[in-house]
């Protein structure tokens, strides 16, 4: 019994998230029977591919006790920059690599400022957000279409799923899933991952234990930059265009997904897998609103905000109880 109790305490927020996802989806299925179709379920992954990718990066940052508000700006910047480069007839693979490099470079720069110059993470990354969005508008003030063959191939090729009939996903959809598995393994089973958790719990003691705090911190922000650049590529593939106004306030969706996924904002507590369910809950709410048709889109923002608040409340209850035990 005590083992089960301990398991429930450790994984409480994650289990709550999975349960809530199932309940929300079942309510949706009852209200709109069309939601029971498997394709609608997999559409969650297709529509939220870029959100999933930035949320994974965000989850790592939050686990470390930091925050990265720049992700949505990076998506906009990547989409515009890649569209502009593709217009110059540069090879798409080169463009993608350049974008990823840019993401890592910006993330690394923010990490360095946060760690070495001791500026608060949210200030630096908020400025990163405004900087990236501003730069996107500097490159081009209106939206640019992408007509590259390779991008079109990536965007339009369907991959049929096994075990399901007439159900398919697209190539970019898989990027998020693959990334999730990789980051989960890194966070769970490597020295690097343990260091991230340790810094999140207590940076001072992690430093005193001789852990490479500086290297890890900068690496985590670089990974988040990489993730947002990847999300930007996925985003521009799915819309086949680039614009500085894309993905507005998506950082909030990402933070909400991470929090709903059971990761504590204070750092050191949580699970990367939970983030997937956070994203799915987010997507399910949007899907229900779309099926309803009469409710307007700004209810999504309000709904996600309220849900985030509730989950922060649940978390603090859990951790208070844990502390008392």
């Amino acid at each position: 019994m005590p083992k089960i109790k301990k398991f429930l305490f450790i994984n409480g927020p994650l289990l709550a998230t999975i349960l809530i996802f199932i309940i929300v989806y079942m309510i949706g299925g009852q209200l709109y029977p069309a939601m029971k179709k498997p394709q609608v379920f997999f559409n969650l992954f297709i529509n939220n591919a870029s959100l999933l990718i930035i949320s994974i990066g965000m989850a790592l940052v939050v686990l470390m006790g930091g925050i990265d508000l720049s992700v949505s700006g990076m998506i906009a910047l990547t989409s515009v920059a890649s569209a502009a480069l593709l217009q110059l007839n540069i090879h798409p693979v080169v463009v993608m690599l350049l974008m990823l490099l840019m993401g890592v470079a910006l993330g690394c720069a923010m990490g360095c400022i946060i760690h070495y110059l001791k500026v608060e993470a949210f200030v630096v990354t908020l400025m990163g957000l405004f900087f990236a969005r501003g730069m996107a508008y500097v490159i081009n003030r209106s939206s640019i279409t992408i007509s590259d063959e390779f991008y079109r191939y990536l965007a339009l090729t369907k991959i049929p799923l096994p075990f399901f009939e007439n159900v398919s996903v697209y190539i970019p959809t898989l990027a998020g899933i693959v990334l999730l598995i990789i980051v989960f393994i890194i966070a769970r089973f490597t020295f690097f991952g343990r260091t991230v958790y340790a810094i999140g719990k207590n940076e001072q003691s992690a430093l005193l234990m001789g852990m490479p705090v500086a290297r890890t911190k900068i690496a985590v922000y670089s990974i988040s930059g990489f993730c947002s650049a990847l999300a930007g590529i996925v985003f521009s593939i799915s819309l086949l265009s680039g614009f500085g106004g894309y993905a507005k306030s998506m950082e909030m969706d990402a933070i909400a997904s991470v929090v709903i996924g059971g990761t504590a904002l204070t750092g050191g507590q949580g699970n990367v897998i939970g983030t997937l369910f956070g994203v799915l809950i987010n997507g399910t709410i949007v899907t229900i609103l779309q099926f309803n048709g009469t409710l307007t889109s700004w209810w999504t923002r309000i709904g996600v905000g309220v849900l985030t608040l509730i989950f922060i409340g649940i978390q603090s209850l859990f951790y208070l109880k844990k502390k008392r035990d």
Partner: protein
Amino acid sequence: MATNSEKKASLLTRFRKSPVFWPLVALVIILIFDGIYAPGFFKIGIVEGHLYGNLIDVINNGAPLILVAIGMTMVIATEGVDLSVGAVIAISAAMGAVLINPALGNELISNEILTQNISHTPLPLIVLANLGAGTACGLFNGFLVSRVKIQPMVATLILMVAGRGLAQLITNGQIMTIYYTPYFWFGNGFIIGIPVAVYIVIAVLIAATLLVRKTSIGLFVESVGVNAKSTFFSGISEKNVKLIAYTFSGFCAAIAGLILSSYAHSADANNIGADYELDAILSVVIGGTLMAGGRFSLLASVIGAVVIRTFTITMYTVGVPANALTAAKAVLVLLVILLYSDQSRRLINKLFDRGKSKKESDDAKN
């Protein structure tokens, strides 16, 4: 003679050490730049008995920003931040526009009714509703931060995003145009040739300064910013201090929303007060208040806001597009934060002191 020069020097050092010094230096630099590259910048004319010109624009259009910056200063001094100011502006503006709407509650809405110069609710009630809505938002933020203990950044981020949704909900997703002329007074009116908004700013600034410097509230705020725990142990309710700071910030943003919607004759839930959080943080940071909380100066933040407005208008005059300007501002914030950091401050003081000691030794030789 010697004592006189000594007094002068001490006055100069006092001025150099005062929080207003660096923002003023920044302002002077920008104005010198204007003088060289945009000579028309300083032109002030009188049209229909009102003062017009870029410099008046800086203060008139800058009034909402100055107000938001005053509120933001209090919040940042308690080691917090309020990212929701833009959304609160939108909510306040939406509230005003909806209450004015002559067709409020009517099912049949025709253009003739909508465009009439009448209001559904009396003006004082509208102003009260505007301020009340914003203050309630601030109270909500303060509650989340002080009682639920959510980090300020996350708590206000929730309202920053959800608040625009709320504003859309209030206006039913439309950009509401206001046709009620008495409402325009706040943003477009003049008293003795000077914009009404300027008087509002001065009133709020004086009230806030009196509250902060003549009562112990300012001291409480600073002590919470320096160390919330020890403040609590010395018998001050740090929770209530935080609550008051966030509520005040919401109140200031609400006045800004009133002025902005009155100035623009409309309430656009998506775009009104956009990027105000960036500009307000920038103003406070330029004013020398540390993001880590503690010592703050309202007047320095006000000058910081004026610097930002001057900078923005200068950039527009030179021909930089509005969207691209955010990138430059973001870099500017980081630079200023780094400039104000302890290390660089020590370096500057060292340079000054070296100059002084050299002069003293020269004097001794003579």
